[in-house]
Structure formats: C-alpha cells, structure tokens
C-alpha cells in the first residue's frame, strides 16, 4: 500500500507539533502484509484533512494515533510524547487528557443524557475537568448552546435525538476541556449536505477558539478546502 502526500505538510519550527508521524506501519497479525502510512507533521492549532477510500486503513491509522493499537514500526509523537513507547495504561491516560474523538455514528452512550455524554471526558480526565474551570456542566452547556442543541434536549436520553443532533453532541464531547487534538472519523458521512457543512463550520470554529488541532478523515474530497492541510491515504485514484 502506497501513500502519498498531496500537499506538503509544512514544518514550522516556532510551534510545537500536535502530531508527528514517521515511517509508520501496522499489521493485524504476523501472516498479513504490513499497512504503511504516510509521514505527517501537524502543527498545534492547524487542521488536517485525511482523504482515503474505504479499505485504505483510515480507522486503523486513527486507532494508532489514538494509542489504541500499537504500530509494527515507526514513531508517533503527539505533543512531544512518543506514544508508541507508552504502556497501555499511559496511552489511555494520554487519550483521556489530550484527545477528543468523533465517530461516524453511534457516538453516544445510550443510557446517559446529552449533557452527561458531553461531560464524560471531564470525569475520565482531571486535566480536562480543570480546563473547564472545574465546572464541566457549565462548559457542556456553553458548547451545546454553541452547537445549537436546544436546551430542552440537554437532559434527554440521546437515543431520542436526531442523527445531526447526536453528531453535534459528539463534537461537544470531543471539544470539552479543550483537548489539543481531535480525531474525527467520517463524522459527517451520515449527515445531509446542509447538516454536514454546518457541522464542519461549528467544529472548526470552536476548535480554533481553544487552539485545538482537528484531524478529519473523510472519503468526501469536497470537504478538503476548509482545512489547512490535506493528505491522501492509499493510492490516488486514476
């Protein structure tokens, strides 16, 4: 599997890197060929669009970045920490403290209310709780308001909400406590185009407010223009 960088990711020495990946490869088991991933360098506060067709290992790549899988070779340095060298527990800790994650769908814990879903990271990470000024509920309410979730929905079971609302609540959860990095795995693929554009606008605007870097994965190339950088995963379609 080849990978190719479409636009060269710039190295700005004055700012520390949010994500830096070198010579990364992964294999699910010993008998399978290794997946290789492009090198990348993302300065703190800038956003990266990662394009790839399905089956190019997008989710595996995100799992590696999130520290949920261990690479076969290469280094992943996030915020100056080589996370592949950390133990499993430390990687969980790191993820809780510094990374927000948004999935394609099923983003929310079904038995928690919208607000409880948003504050979940602050209960798992002291650091993110402190970032909200020890008041995760107020931070959650601020984000939910900014993401246009009506107040009447805050204490509702999330299963009663629309997909668009659920994705925006997931964005609020990823944003709360101002983590340095947000990994978004096709968060808009279940949304219609109006909702999709609104979602990306809100996500990027709110991320910029807290100087958060967003790594956005999608198969929809038309979204790429909103990001500072973009790279291609897998072969470029002819």
């Amino acid at each position: 599997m080849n990978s190719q960088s479409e636009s060269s990711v710039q190295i700005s020495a004055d700012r520390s890197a949010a994500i830096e990946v070198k010579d990364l490869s992964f294999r699910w088991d010993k008998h399978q060929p290794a997946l290789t991933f492009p090198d990348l360098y993302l300065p703190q506060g800038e956003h990266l669009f990662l394009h790839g067709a399905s089956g190019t290992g997008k989710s595996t790549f995100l799992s590696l970045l999130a520290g949920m899988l261990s690479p076969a070779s290469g280094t992943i340095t996030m915020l100056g920490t080589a996370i592949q060298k950390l133990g499993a527990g430390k990687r969980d800790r790191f993820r809780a403290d510094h990374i927000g994650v948004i999935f394609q769908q099923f983003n929310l814990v079904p038995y928690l209310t919208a607000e409880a879903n948003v504050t979940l990271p602050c209960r798992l990470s002291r650091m993110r709780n402190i970032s909200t000024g020890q008041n995760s509920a107020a931070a959650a309410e601020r984000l939910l308001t900014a993401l246009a979730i009506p107040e009447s929905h805050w204490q509702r079971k999330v299963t009663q909400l629309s997909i668009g609302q659920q994705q925006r609540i997931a964005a609020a959860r990823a944003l709360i406590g101002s983590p340095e990095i947000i990994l978004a795995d096709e968060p808009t693929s279940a949304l219609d185009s109006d909702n999709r554009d609104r979602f990306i606008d809100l996500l990027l605007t709110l991320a910029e407010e807290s100087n958060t870097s967003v790594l956005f994965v999608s198969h929809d190339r038309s979204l790429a223009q909103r990001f500072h950088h973009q790279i291609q995963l897998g072969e470029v379609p002819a």
Partner: protein
Amino acid sequence: MKARLAISLASASLWHRRKVLALVCLTLTLSVTLLLGIQYLRTEVKQSFTSTISDTDLIIGARSGQLNLLLYTVFHIGDATNNIRWSTFQDLKEDSRIDWLIPISLGDSYKGFRVVGTDQGFGKHFRFGRGQPLTLASGQWFDGVFDVVLGAGVAKQLNHALDDKIILSHGGGRTSFSNHTNTPFTVTGILDATGTPVDQAVYISLQGMEAIHVGWESGIAIPGRTLTPEQAEGRDFTPGNITAVFAGLDRKILTFRVQRDLNQYSGEPLSAVLPGVALSELWRLMSQFERALFAITGFVVITSLIGLVAVLLTLQTQRAHEIAILRATGASPGLIASLYLIECLALAVVACLAALAFSALAVSMLGPWLLTNYGIQIPLRALNLDEWALLISVPLAAVVVALIPAFSAWRQSRSQGLGSGAE
C-alpha cells in the same frame, strides 16, 4: 473519582436495561429466598423439635419403635399400636425409682385436634423448652368429668372462651361422623401458647375419656347404652387401658436401668424410650432430607447466577458501541471490566435484599399456619451469623462469576481499535 464514575455508569446502564435484567434479578431473588428460607427453617424446626418435651425421662407405651412412640405421644402424629393396661400403670406407680407419672390416653379428636385424656399430673409435671411448665392463660385445670382444657392454638383458632360447651368426636380426623353428642364438655381452662404440639390439643381427664365411651364398646354408639351427664354423676370411671405414660425419675442415673426393666416387663410387652434419644434419631432422619434440600437450593442459586452471567454475556455484544465510546474517551479496559463486576454485584445485592424482604413476609405469613397445622413454631427473628454468611456469600459468588464477562470485556477492549471494530 474513577470508582464513582464506574458506579454511576454501571447504575445508569442497569437502569437502561432494567426490563431484561429485572427478570434475571427475579430468578436470583427467588432462588436466594429459597436458600435463605431453608436455612432459616432448618434452625427453627430444630429448635422447635428439641423444645417439644423436656424433663421427661421416659416415655412408656405398648411395644413399638421409639420413633413411633415419640411421634404419637408427643407430636400427635400417627396412632398407637396398642394400649397398655391400667394395672400396668398401677404397677409403675409402685416403682420407688419413679418420681412422677403422666398417663396419656389418645384416640378421640375435636375438630381435627387431638383429645388427650390425662390427669392433674400433666399440668403439674409436663415441661417443654428449657424446663418451662405449662401455664394457664385463663381458668383452671379440669376438675369434673366433663371439664376440658384447651391448648392455646385450639382456643385461638376456634375462638373458644371459658364455659363454652364443646362436643368431642370419636376417632381422629377433621370431620368425624360419630360425635359424642350426649356428653358435651365445658371449657374450664385455656393454656398459654408454648409453640409445641401441646397448643394443638385439648385435655380432658381419664374419667371423662372413659365416660364418653360408655356404650361405644363396639366402636359406634349403641342407642340407649350411652350416658348423659346426669347419669354419669357419682359413677366410677376407672379406665381399663391407657395409651402411654410419661415418667420422671428421682435419680436420672437410673434411667437406663428403669428403661431396661420396663422393656422386660413381665405383665405385657412395653417399650420405654428416652425422649432425647428419640428426638435426636428423628432429627437425624429429618436432617438427611434437610441437607439434601439445602444442597439442591444451593445448586438452584448457582444455576441462576450462571443464568445472570449468560444474560450479561449476551448483552455484551449489544454494548460494543458503548464500550468503544468509553474506550475512545480514555476509559481503561479495567474500568470497562469493573462495570460488569459492579453491575453483577449490584444485581446480586438487590436480589438478596428482595429475598430478605420476601422471606420475612413468608415467615410472618406462613408462621401461624405452620403452628396450627404442624405444631412447629417459626417466629420471625433476626438472622443468625450462619444465615448472614449464607446471604453474603451470594453477592460474593456473583462477583466471582462476573469475572467471566468482565475478563472477556477486558480482553476485547485491549485489542480493539478505535470505534466499534465494525468498520
């Protein structure tokens, strides 16, 4: 902070799945109720058993097994194989080693309760529990031929008061077709409750027993031959037979010698048994059964715990998304595993509390019924140490079996990538 998060997540998750889990919880509740109930009954029945008779050194009746003799004289279960002659009773009275005797004459009933023909010695010498004597709640012991003293249970159940007239029936059974209608008895006394079979019987004098059977020699009343109370005045009603005798000795050390002598009595074949020995034999018989029952209920509890784990494992596939979210948010595999442990523990604790309430309800509702029908007293009391231990072992066992889904969740979430794995 992690523990609080785990507990709040687990309780929210339990509440979310309450419909499915309520059923498994109910299964567990019922089986724990059964387990606890049987353990409780074991203790109480044993207590009730050993306190039915006290201070009586020998029970003497016609030749039969000691269990049979014990059952029909003390528990009013079953019938005597034969009677013993009045002359034998007189002989026993002559025996200097014997301190006191209580004659017992059985065979009739009053609305299903045994009629016991005896003498004043019953009130004076009979002891139960830890040597407690019988006391009268009201009235006095029988004096006249047609006087009757009621056990507490009889008086309560049939709502009798002093001076009520009652008609005794011939033979046992709840409904008898041959009644001693000509000779009504007057209630002169009502006993205090003892929690023993004494409560479930009525007591008349041997003379009364004899008087109502005049004219009944063939087994049914022959018209014109039976007595009226007026005719009975002044007649001598020395009985020809009695059923059994309770005896107390002057010197306990002689018990075995007296027993041997009586078993070899030349006048007629007798059996003398030691109530304590007979009771423990009866208990040994019962305890086999009771132990088997206990083991079975133990297995029932284990079965329902396994059922609980099976349900939790089934739910695990439904929880893949939720686990993926928690993991992505930074929850460790340990936290995920602890959710299963906490949920299983919580279900077991709820089941145990419900079982405790169920058992208390059952005991307070069935207790009076058991006392009336079987003469076994099952009072509501605080649990003893054994029972607490048994109850607490259920949540502990639940945690042990919950290790299965917990470990499987732990392993799965360690090897899983971001997302639910279903790309």
